[in-house]
């Protein structure tokens, strides 16, 4: 008898024989779990967490009771709290029913490469929180002015701040001691020229803030010096909510179907941000209580869940959010452990699925300051598209699915060492050249095989190259007459291309690109293309003057490949730019500049959202956009490449 086993966050799943251990199941399904002892129950490394509940998306009921009882050996390695939280050792738990497991970061074999580097952008340094060093007159019998008033008047006199600034109550609790322990010298942090949120004894040079980008899959945090505005310290981890659902919709469903679902996901993300804050604070030698400001961007569903607001109505048409405007919330109200009185600035929502993350992209790229027509595509599990210039900006969102990130692809994987990220195929011989993450050069005979799968940028590359080499036709169908042993029928009778023979991989089997993979990419790229097409049409501009590809893996996409497959419309390739994680950059800009916060609010209100899925001819256009590069539209800028495609 077999049971369904699902591993998160990788999303690997399959039917596994009853009685096998979870570690064996992981191996069978290609999930890399740390087990230095090889499953001898002595190292305690293969910790996994069993998530209980009914998971609509997979149609399974996962229970801790679907595994063999806890063994004595496990009790040596797992704390009482872990045991209560359904943690098990993979080598000790045997399968008796369906289970959904979460593999914690430390138990994962291959560490993910999270690509959330920052891009330098010009801005005016004007953070919402500034610190001021004050020399106060000590209280005397002649001058019995209270401590708070003393600070208020010093701020007004020495720095020209408005008189009578407010103060957050918890700051008052320690005020007498703070003021006196610094010998009447204090450093005061003021939020938005309005409220005193922090007072410390003596002179403090630095002032720190944290910008956070909560992605559906990855959470990135940037610790920034608010005084210098210099390069940030960066740390990131996988969004721990992945265990409750890989995409936005399955997480919303989890919140709808489980009474404590929202709370669980909320706790997971708050803890994740707290751990990033702690890690970053440590790296610069401060405590988290010295982080004085925070800004956050996310998609609208992540936004609701992080703010503990029921995301239910975000999951269905008409996708109305609870609120759209930007918001300043006390960090303590959210359980975020930074300075006790600090605020969290939540960037505004544009519309429904177009969230603060897209606003972040907009304030980073500033299409609203330009005359030329810019097309902005933020590629993630959900694609967001903006088009326009200073006169008018339009936006839409489209369900691209996770194919472009490597999920739903037979040998797809996230960006980690061993992932094939660049591909070239010889149009004559159909022989490929591959490059994997972690290697400088193209793989060649004699190298140690490293390939274990294909990541997002590799998938875009390989599909475009297969098309250019004539392995697949414009309709996406395999050319069965291709004279190459690499083009073959798989065991299930479907066509596939062997990108890497078993001897050249680190997984002992052929890495192939299947007809199904091609189809999944066609759906995703057509969704993006049609979204852009509608926006350009409604904006009355036939072509974009420039294209910006944003998104964590956006910087690694080969733009020519993206255009050859028709993921983006025709444009001068020199004016197509990959900018990386622009949403995170936007969060950082909002942290460092109040005028950016104002711009964010303005642009979020000004952008006009277009719902493309309900356009009457959506179906027809979607179908036309599935062809490579398109069944009707021309691509003059890459015509020379298309002309070289071998004809049958």
């Amino acid at each position, binding site marked *: 008898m077999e049971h369904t086993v699902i591993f998160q966050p990788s999303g690997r799943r399959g039917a596994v024989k009853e009685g096998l251990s979870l570690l064996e199941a992981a191996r069978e399904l290609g999930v890399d779990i740390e087990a230095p002892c090889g499953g001898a129950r002595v190292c305690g490394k293969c910790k996994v967490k069993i998530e209980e509940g*009914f998971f609509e998306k*997979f149609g399974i009921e996962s229970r801790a009771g679907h595994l063999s009882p806890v063994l004595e050996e496990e009790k040596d390695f797992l704390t009482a709290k872990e045991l209560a939280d359904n943690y098990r050792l993979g080598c000790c738990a045997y399968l008796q029913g369906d289970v959904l497991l979460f593999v914690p970061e430390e138990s994962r074999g291959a560490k993910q490469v999270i690509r959330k580097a920052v891009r330098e952008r010009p801005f005016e340094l004007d953070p919402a929180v500034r610190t001021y060093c004050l020399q106060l007159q000590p209280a005397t019998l002649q001058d019995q002015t209270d401590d708070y008033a003393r600070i208020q008047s010093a701020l007004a006199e020495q720095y020209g701040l408005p008189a009578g600034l407010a103060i957050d109550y918890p700051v008052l609790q320690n005020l007498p001691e703070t003021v006196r322990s610094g010998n009447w010298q204090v450093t005061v942090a003021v939020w938005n020229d309005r409220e005193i949120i922090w007072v410390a004894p003596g002179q403090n040079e630095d002032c720190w803030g944290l910008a956070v980008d909560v992605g559906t899959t990855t959470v990135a945090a940037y610790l920034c010096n608010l005084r210098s505005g210099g390069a940030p310290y960066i740390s990131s981890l996988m969004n721990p909510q992945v265990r409750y659902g890989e995409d936005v919709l399955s997480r919303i469903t989890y919140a709808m179907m489980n009474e404590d679902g929202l709370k669980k996901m909320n706790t997971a993300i708050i803890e994740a941000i707290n751990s990033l804050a702690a890690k970053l604070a440590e790296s610069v030698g401060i405590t988290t209580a010295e982080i004085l400001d925070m800004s956050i961007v996310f998609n609208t569903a992540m936004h609701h869940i992080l703010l503990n607001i029921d995301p239910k109505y975000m999951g269905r*048409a008409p996708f109305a959010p609870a609120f759209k405007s930007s918001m300043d919330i006390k960090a303590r109200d959210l359980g975020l452990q930074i300075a006790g009185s600090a605020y969290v600035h939540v960037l505004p929502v544009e519309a429904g699925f177009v969230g603060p993350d897209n606003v972040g992209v907009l304030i980073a790229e500033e299409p609203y300051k330009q005359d030329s027509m810019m097309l902005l595509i933020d590629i993630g599990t959900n694609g967001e598209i903006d088009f326009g210039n200073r006169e008018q900006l339009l936006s839409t969102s489209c369900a691209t699915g996770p194919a472009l990130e490597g999920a739903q692809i037979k040998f797809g994987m996230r960006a980690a060492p061993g992932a094939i990220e660049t591909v070239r195929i010889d149009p004559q011989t159909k022989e490929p050249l591959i490059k994997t993450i972690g290697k400088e050069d193209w793989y060649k005979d004699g190298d140690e095989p490293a390939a274990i799968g294909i990541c997002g940028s590799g998938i875009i590359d390989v599909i475009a190259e297969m098309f250019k080499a004539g392995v697949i036709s414009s309709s996406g*169908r395999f050319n069965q007459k291709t004279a190459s042993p690499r083009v073959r029928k798989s065991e299930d009778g479907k066509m596939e291309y062997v990108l890497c023979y078993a001897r050249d991989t680190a997984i002992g089997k052929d890495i192939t690109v299947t007809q199904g993979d091609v189809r999944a990419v066609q759906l995703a790229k057509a969704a993006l293309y049609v979204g852009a097409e509608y926006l350009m049409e409604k904006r009355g501009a036939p072509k974009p003057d420039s294209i910006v590809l944003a998104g964590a893996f956006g910087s690694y996409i080969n733009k020519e490949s993206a255009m050859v497959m028709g993921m983006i419309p025709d444009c001068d390739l020199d004016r197509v730019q990959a900018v990386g994680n622009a949403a995170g950059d936007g969060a950082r800009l909002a942290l460092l500049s109040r005028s950016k916060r104002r711009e964010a609010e303005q642009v979020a209100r000004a952008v006009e959202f277009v719902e493309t899925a309900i356009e009457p001819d959506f*179906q027809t256009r979607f*179908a036309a956009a599935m062809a490579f590069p398109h069944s009707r539209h021309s691509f003059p800028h890459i015509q020379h490449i298309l002309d070289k495609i071998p004809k049958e």
Partner: protein
Amino acid sequence: MSEDRAAELFARLKDGVINYDEEAVVAAAKEVLAEGIDAGKAVFEGLVAGMEEVGRLYEEQEYFVPELLMCADALYAGLDVLKPHMEKKDLGVTGVVVMGVVQGDVHDIGKNIVKMMFDVAGFTVYDLGRDVPLEKFVEEQLRTDSDLVCLSAMMTTTMVGMKDIIRKIKEKNPKCKIMIGGAPVSEEIAEKFGADGYAKDASNALKDAINMLATLRKLQQESA
């Protein structure tokens, strides 16, 4: 008029659908009528047989959504010519189906493909469209006394609404069969929600619908 001639025209209808050649289908359909060949037979042995092959090609991933939609256009073009001349035969199936995409969901390509198959089969289809309020399904089922209600959802968030619809319809009319479909739907979900059948995706829906049609066609051939 020979059997051979009929078979030749049916083959042309079938190939026309497979090759999504609207003009060829219409031309063959007109010849069928002009030569007095049974329109119903032409639909089933020509058009539907072609669509069965299309379904197989889709299943094998040779054809994809664009081809499917073009084949559908060819099929409808033929149907427009032939359907007015089909005799209504009682096959023991009243053939009334209510279908739609559930509230909160606007993705309807899958539903449109399934609808097409029911159209072809000669079912009377009440297509409620997309973003259909839950009560509307119950009302329409009662109003039309349909044998079958088909619910579609593309998103897990809207799929969960199906459960209530199924319960309410079954309360009012326990005999009515309910089929659910869409990307997030699974056999377990169908069972949990109390549906009578499910179609995993457009491909499966098509196959299921084709299976129904094939059975129907067999019945018709036997009765002929």
